[in-house]
């Protein structure tokens, strides 16, 4: 199955192996025809309207502003509804450095995002600490704090790179198992078992 987004030809994508691995997992496990079709329908909707959380700490955030403005215009892809509250957002674009003091705040924001949630590490600071590798007050990459779905390298990445990164995320969403998979409601019981209320 060739997974693509926004009409871009399949050969033009990078990291196709990763997506193919996801597709294979999906096919191996097998699924009910009705649930599978519903999954496809819902994922089609989800992947075309991923809403970001307005979250920016430094330079990369300004490129994110450019992305929202007329020239790069992310509204073309259905991402323009930047939400100020994590409760209403689908994914978090970590645009900028995360430092020691920010880590608990950042983690809380991530926890507040509603499932299914995604994280994009944008720029070299968020990926590995970047130019601040030797600093005493910078978290060396956000992967230690939250799980990351897509990495966008650059310092800061160009808006085109950001568009490509979010499109990769939308490809990933397309091949996810929704019912019984990433849909949080199915996990409620397990969650309560793992986090008992006194």
């Amino acid at each position, binding site marked *: 199955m060739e997974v693509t987004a926004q009409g871009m030809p399949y050969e033009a994508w990078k990291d196709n192996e990763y997506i193919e691995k996801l597709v294979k997992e999906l096919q191996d496990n097998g699924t009910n025809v009705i649930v599978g079709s519903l999954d496809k329908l819902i994922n089609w909707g989800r992947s075309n309207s991923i809403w970001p959380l*307005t*979250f*920016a*700490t*430094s*330079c990369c*955030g*300004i*490129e994110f*502003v*450019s992305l929202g*403005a*007329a*020239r790069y215009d992310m509204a073309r892809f259905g991402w323009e509804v930047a939400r*100020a509250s994590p409760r209403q957002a689908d994914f978090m674009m970590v645009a*900028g*450095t995360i*430092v*020691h*003091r*920010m*880590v*608990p*705040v950042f*983690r*809380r*924001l991530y926890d507040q995002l509603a499932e299914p949630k995604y994280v994009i590490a944008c720029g070299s600071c968020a990926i590995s600490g970047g*130019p*601040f590798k*030797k*600093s*005493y*007050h*910078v*978290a060396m990459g956000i992967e*230690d*704090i939250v799980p990351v779905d897509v990495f966008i390298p650059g*310092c*800061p990445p*160009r808006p085109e790179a950001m568009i490509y990164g979010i499109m990769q995320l939308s490809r990933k969403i397309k091949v996810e198992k929704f019912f019984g998979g990433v849909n949080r409601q199915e996990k409620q019981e397990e969650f309560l078992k793992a986090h008992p209320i006194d």
Partner: protein
Amino acid sequence: MVNIQEKISKLFPEATFEAGDVMRVTVPDAQWHDFAKTLRDDEELSFDFLVTIVGMDWKENGLGCIYYLTSTKHNTHISVKVMATGDRQQPFIHSIADLWAIAVIFEREVYDFFGIIFINNPDMRRLFLNIDWKGFPLRKDYNDDPNINPVSIENERQTDFTDMWVEEADGKVVKKERRIFAEDDFVVNIGPQHPATHGVLRFRTAVDGEIIKKIDIYLGYIHRGVEKICEGLTYPQTLHFMDRLDYFSAHPYHHCLCMAIEEAAGIQISRRAQVIRVLMDELSRIASHCLFIGTYCMDLGATTMLFYTLRVREQILDIMERTCGARMTFNYDCIGGVMQDLHPDFVKDVHALLDVIPKNIAEYNKVFTGNVIAKNRMENVGVLTREDAISWAVTGPNGRGSGWACDVRKCNPYSIYSELEFDEVVRTEGDSMARFKVRVEEMVQSARIIAQLIDNIPEGEYCVKVPKVIKLPVGHWFKTVEGCRGTFGVYLESDGTANPYRLKIAPPCLPASAVVDHITEGQKIADLITIGGSLDYIVPDIDR
């Protein structure tokens, strides 16, 4: 013009003098407060503007501070060195927080980095680091083992108390606990994740109904320790951090550090490089003010303006991208000139830009400035008087909106600014509208500077030959430039090696954010967004 040295030595015979780019006076800590009072209040001296406080660790020679002061009346400069008393565990210096309002924040910064305790400072807390942070990072013997201060996802400890150290009659210094807010204050957190704080800034706001009583500014959510990293790098390597402080003023900030290093190393740069640098500075000023107008209007609810202003900004970024190869972090100015020559289309592109700027500004004014909603929200909101602007060291367009002519390009011209014709934009109202209008006017003036230079870029080399390894002689230098948001200063101290011994960055946004407490007092909470937006601080520049 009075001879400052003679006058000071008459009043304070114990003071010693050292010549340099700025004269340095050394006084003992016991006399420091009286000396500072004289410097500020004496008619002939009147050093009323505290530019920065540089904390220093001279290893076995002890800890100390260097204060940079400027007289706005006489346009004279002085620096004062004060050594801390006591041992390394508890070094003390007397506070000057009662003389300059901004000193409270500056002294907290020095305490955070060096552990120097300021006697009588009413708020002796850490500024950027957690309460429980171990060690003082800018000390030379700081242990940066990540296991001592690990990354934690647990919430940091919060407190409503602060310390004040006071000297008792017998000379003993004791710690006293003070409340930050009154006991029954209702405190609301604004930030660090809030779209209108322009980054990760946090205001702890005490409110009485809708009225703001006090704001406690909580910084450090993007403190990256640039000053400490620079101490381990060579001079050319330190340059690229200037891009990442105030990313809109990347060119002016680079310019400042390059000037400091070039002066120290005795490098003369070519006329062509000077012109290119000034052109880039002014282009980035226009781009920066464009984004300010866009985001500020968006904060006030006029989203359309963002699309209008980013149109010009994108055009400028295209010009820069062609020459520098990047959209934001240019790393273009280098020691000896600039990295690469101008793109062949540069002159043509800039002419195209100059053609559209007047039309665009007319459009901004038509859409927003004269709008009755904008007027109601901005006029007489957040008034900052000239005296307060100086006391709080609020420079740049914010200071000029309050009637303080503080443009470094005019009062201490650097590079080729003295030969250029442009007006310093000063307004006297001091409200949010004035700060907004100053920026719009400044775009016109920057375009005027560019128009003068663009057809007269001299031929020549864009970068002179400099040694591969740059070593500076032993000494110290302080340089200031007019960044897009105000006076940006760099203090450089060298011990003769290829790395800086101390590189202190004096950002304009720290005072601009500190003054929020002062000008929002008694205003409505909705106006906090207007006031904060009009001050246009960039959080990574505050925190460094």
